[in-house]
Structure formats: structure tokens, C-alpha cells
């Protein structure tokens, strides 16, 4: 369906990524946001706090990120589309509720504008070291979806996409920005509302008494209802049956947790999104995401000028990881080069999936600034030389 025009600021703008992400949320139909200030993400909620009251929405600054990360889930069960925004330390505090959202299949969006870590780290400077936390940070087995914008334009479009994926798959979706993308100002084009695809909630058509809140459809995802509709919902973080009733045994655990994992794993190819360039015939493929993919492009251009056949793959959807595509490439290319603003996170996935068919060369960086393209170039040159 088309976007609600009341939230769409159609036109050409000069925005930073944080403000663009706010506009993406409003275009997607988000009308509830709970937040807590944290650098370098605060501009997202600052803009939301200014925008939502004029369009019938609700913003509340909560007392901490723990509260912010569950207040939005209350709003979702009351029928709204909702998000919260944070950075590393706040993201750590939100982890328990990301698990709750996964377990209760609560469609909601968490934005993490990554900064240097661990702990307080580098509040004003970039990092990409929360990628594994996004995937594994809460306890127990679950799956989420994570997107990585590389520009303010994508901060807009991928925030819309994050809401759409959350509604379609009923999972918490994480928009994994970084400080550079969040604070970089570029042209952002916001299309007319009727050209923005928005996914509505999967409202049940069943009447109270017949509807089971956790009975999956053919795509393994249950339809939803909201509080106040007479369904007498039972929503719990405990292991539960299709009615939502707690069931404390292995059989119920297997049925529920297997499904919330498999609904993403078995549909990974549908959810996955990468951007590739000059992959055919490439001897080296550079895999990157977020701001690092733009820095890597410079290194790739320099390598190509030296006559090295380099392809690129940019992870737009980082989780679920594009396993099948990377596995396919591993038997064709001579090496993968993975630059990222951490000491090896997504590179571990590349290495795991490549399974020894092609070596994975990590180009690590502790964060605080972006890579020097020369360092990535050197890794490409070495990888190509080793490959020859």
C-alpha cells in the first residue's frame, strides 16, 4: 500500500542521515517513538519530537534505554508502528527487550547509530562493532533482521524498509547506522507518498474466540491483533503455545523457538539484499557495509587502475547474512577482502560461509575514523597476489 501522505515530506532535501532516518520512519507510518538521548543518535529523536505532535503522533523521552526499548512494544500492541533510537551503550541496555520482541513477535524498529566502543568508547566518532551484538546480543536463540545504510538517502529508504520487514516477518528490525552516515549531510530525495511502498500490519480477520495470536500462517508468521479488540490476547516472554499460554516443556520450546528462528532462516534469500558491482570474473571480492563500503570503493577504483579484477558486494541487509550468494562466490573467486570498523565481525560470517574455498582477508579498524583507502588497497593487492 502507499504511504500516508501526512508523514511524507516529499521533495529534495539536504539532510544528515539521522534526520533522514526520522523522515523514513514517518513515511513508513511510524506514529510512536520512545527515546533516550545518546550521542551520536540524538538528532533522530530530536526531529521526531518536533515532527510527531503536528501529525497526531506521540513521542516520549523515557527515563532510560531499558524503558524506551519496551515502551515502543506496548505501543505496537496498542496498534501503532513504533521505533526507538540509540547508540552502543543504550543498545546494550536494550538487549533484553530485543529478545522479548523476538519471542512475542512484536514488529518494531530499533535504530543503532554505531560509535566506537566498547563501553563509553568514542561517543562522537564512528564504529561498526555492534554488528554481532545486533545478531546475538539477547540471550537465547532467535533471529532478527538488520539493515546497513551507506548514505542519508539510504537512511531514509532503509528505515521505510525496516518497518516493512518488521511488519511482514513480525521481528524486531535493526537499522545499523554508523556515526559517519548519521552525521553526513547529503541530498535526500523523498518521493511522493503514493510512490512509497508501505507494508501494513498483518491484522487478523478472525473474530474473537477463533483467533489464536501465535498460530502461524503458511509463511510461518502469525497474524496479529491489538489490545482492546476483544481478543483477550495473552502475550508473554515465556515459552508459549499458539494461544500465547505459557507451556514449560521441551516440546513447546522446540515448536516455538524453531519457528521464530526458521521463519527468518528459511526465508533468508527473500529478505537478503546486497548490491554487487563487477562480480563476474572478479578474482577478489570486497565485502563491506555502511560507511566502509564508500571508503572501500576508492580502494577498489585504485586496484582496478592497477589492472586487478575486483568486484564488490555491499551488504544492505547484513542479517540474515547472504549465505547462499557468498557460498556461490567462494567457489569462483580467489579471495574475499572484508574491511570493517571493528576487529572482525561480519568477516567471521564470510569466513564461515566460504568454508575454506576462498580465503577471507579482514581489514580491521578499531573505529574513531574511517579506513585509509590505501590500507584496503594494500589488502586487495596482497589478496590478488596470493591468489595468482
Amino acid at each position, binding site marked *: 500500500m502507499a504511504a500516508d501522505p501526512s508523514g511524507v515530506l516529499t521533495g529534495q532535501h539536504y539532510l544528515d542521515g539521522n534526520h533522514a532516518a526520522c523522515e523514513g520512519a514517518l513515511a513508513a507510518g511510524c506514529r510512536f517513538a520512545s527515546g533516550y538521548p545518546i550521542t551520536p543518535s540524538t538528532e533522530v529523536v530530536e526531529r521526531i519530537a518536533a515532527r510527531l505532535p503536528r501529525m497526531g503522533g506521540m513521542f516520549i523521552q523515557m527515563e532510560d534505554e531499558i524503558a524506551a526499548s519496551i*515502551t515502543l512494544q506496548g505501543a505496537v500492541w496498542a496498534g501503532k508502528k513504533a521505533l526507538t533510537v540509540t547508540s552502543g551503550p543504550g543498545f546494550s541496555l536494550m538487549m533484553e527487550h530485543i529478545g522479548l520482541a523476538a519471542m512475542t513477535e512484536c514488529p518494531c524498529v530499533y535504530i543503532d547509530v554505531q560509535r566506537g566502543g566498547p563501553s563509553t568508547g568514542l561517543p562522537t566518532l564512528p564504529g561498526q562493532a555492534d554488528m554481532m551484538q545486533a545478531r546475538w546480543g539477547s540471550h537465547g536463540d532467535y533471529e532478527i533482521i538488520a539493515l546497513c545504510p551507506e548514505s542519508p538517502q539510504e537512511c531514509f529508504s532503509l528505515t521505510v524498509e525496516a518497518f516493512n520487514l518488521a511488519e511482514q516477518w513480525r521481528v524486531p528490525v535493526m537499522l545499523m547506522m554508523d556515526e559517519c552516515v548519521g552525521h553526513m549531510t547529503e541530498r535526500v530525495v523523498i518521493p511522493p507518498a503514493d510512490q512509497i511502498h508501505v507494508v501494513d500490519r498483518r491484522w487478523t480477520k478472525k473474530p474473537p474466540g477463533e483467533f489464536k495470536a501465535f498460530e502461524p500462517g503458511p509463511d510461518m508468521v502469525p497474524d496479529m491483533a491489538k489490545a482492546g479488540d476483544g481478543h*483477550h490476547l495473552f502475550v508473554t516472554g515465556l515459552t508459549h503455545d499458539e494461544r500465547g*499460554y505459557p507451556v514449560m516443556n521441551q516440546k513447546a520450546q522446540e515448536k516455538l523457538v524453531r519457528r521464530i528462528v526458521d521463519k527468518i532462516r528459511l526465508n533468508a534469500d527473500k529478505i537478503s539484499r546486497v548490491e554487487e558491482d563487477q562480480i563476474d570474473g572478479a578474482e577478489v571480492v570486497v565485502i563491506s557495509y555502511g560507511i566502509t563500503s564508500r571508503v572501500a570503493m576508492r580502494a577498489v577504483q585504485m586496484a582496478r587502475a592497477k589492472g586487478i579484477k575486483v568486484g564488490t558486494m555491499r551488504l544492505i541487509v547484513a542479517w540474515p547474512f547472504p549465505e547462499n550468494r557468498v557460498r556461490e562466490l567462494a567457489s569462483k573467486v580467489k579471495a574475499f577482502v572484508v574491511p570493517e570498523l571493528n576487529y572482525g565481525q561480519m568477516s567471521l560470517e564470510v569466513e564461515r560461509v566460504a568454508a575454506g574455498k576462498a580465503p577471507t582477508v579482514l581489514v580491521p579498524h578499531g573505529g574513531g575514523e574511517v579506513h585509509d583507502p590505501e590500507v584496503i588497497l594494500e589488502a586487495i593487492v596482497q589478496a590478488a597476489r596470493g591468489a595468482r
Partner: protein
Amino acid sequence: MSQVDTNPVKEYLRMDRMPSIWCPGCGIGTSVNCFARALTQAKVDLKKTTVVSGIGCSGRVSGYLELDSFHTTHGRAIPFATGLKLANPELNVVVYSGEGDLAAIGGNHLIHAARRNIDLLVICVNNFTYGMTGGQVSPTSPGGATYSTAPYGQFETPFNLPHLADSCGAVYVARWTTFHVRQLTKSIREAFGKKGFRFIEVISPCPTLYQRRNKLGDGLDAMKFYKEASVLKNGADTRELDIGFQSPIIVGSFVNRDRPSFIEAMNKRFTSVFGESYKPYPEGPSKAVQGC
């Protein structure tokens, strides 16, 4: 003695989940009975009433009520309920949980929701211990009482919960024990008739852990103690409501005032800033239940 064949409040309960997990002599079920009777007496719109709990013995209440039931994470029932209420002000949102959940791990949310005057009724079952995990010391545990994690006796100063809620701005504050079933029922009804942050503390026995460890007898002994030790003081100064080990328990309705709810204050502010172009956010019913 009259016989009842069926549970008189069964229409409010998920009977397919009975029996409950609560121990014999536990007071949580008694409080739920009072809550259900208050729902009947106040003719509450059950379709619009939703109950949110955290974790613990009292955290199981939401799941036994035939309403929209949300069993959330430990300590976070209030912020979840805040999201429900602010996203749909038509809902009558009740938070039902224990003192460990609401005043220890969730203490920060309790004070801020009261400060903001979020339109919620919070029923806090205070049994002076963490029952679900086996009888550990809690933020209201009285001095001298022993616990599995305070084997030589509790020595911290406990929270006086009505004073805490009052200080933070709650518009309605009461305390009853599970001996005071009529008063508690009436108090819940009264709270349904108000808008804003309402807090009712229910002192409740835990025969299995708190009483057994402190040699205080069974559930019936607790009832006898509540009967003898309770002192009715409606309108009492909430600073004087401390509870010591087996000390007198002051019960009553202590605070009943009005101040703008979060949404009312927000609408007032935005209207003054934006003028007539501001479309006020829906404020929901003027009280949780009409006719109270």
C-alpha cells in the same frame, strides 16, 4: 454455611489456566478476587481493559485474567503499560505486579510514571520477599527479618511505598492487607474512577517463604496478624507509613487529588504553543471507568 459450586468471579478468569501457581495461604489470589469484584461492581468495559505484569509470583496475575494480558520482562511492566496507554488512550490499563518487580528492578520506572502522571492503575502486591526465586530479601523487607540472601537478618532501610508514590506525584495512593477484602475492592473501584497515576499497595502473606523462614505461621496466622496489627488511618501523612518487623500496619486511602495527566499536560502545552492549528491528542475517558 452457604456452598458455591462455581467460582463467582470465573468470568474474569482464564479458567482453562487453573489451578494457579500460587501456594496455599498466598494472598495474591485474594487480591485478584477483589480486583475481579471491583471490575464487576464498576461495570468496567472488559474489552478495553488490559493488565500488564512483570515477573514474579504477582507477575503471573495478568495471565490468569480473561482480559488482554501482557506478561512482560522483570521490572518493566510500567514502561510497557506506558506505551499501551499513550498509543491508545481509550484503553483502561492496569499494572499488576509485586514489590520486587515494581520497586527494586522497576523502581526507576515507578517514580517516573508517577512524576509524569501517566494514566495507569498500579496494584503492587507487597509480600516482603521474592517468592518465585525462593525467598530473598526485597526492597520492602522489614529490619530484622531473615531471608535466604539475608540469613543474619535484614538491616537496610525498607521502602515505604505509599510515601514513595505520594512524593512522586501519584493522584491516588492507598494501602490495604489481604484481610481487608471489602476495603481493597472499594479502593480499586475508587481508583478506577480517577484519571492519572494511581497506586494501591496490597500487603499479602507469603506462608511458604517469608513466614516459614521467620516462624510466623501459615496463611491464617497472617490473616489474624493483619486483623490485629492493622490501624485504619485514612488520609494519614504518608511519611508515617513505615512497616517494621511484625509492627502495626497503617492501612487506608492516603492520597486523593487531581492534577493533569501526561496527555492533558501535553495537550495544554502544545495548544499554547501552536494555537488552534494543534489537533489535541486523544485524552481517553476522563476516568478509567464511567459511573465510579
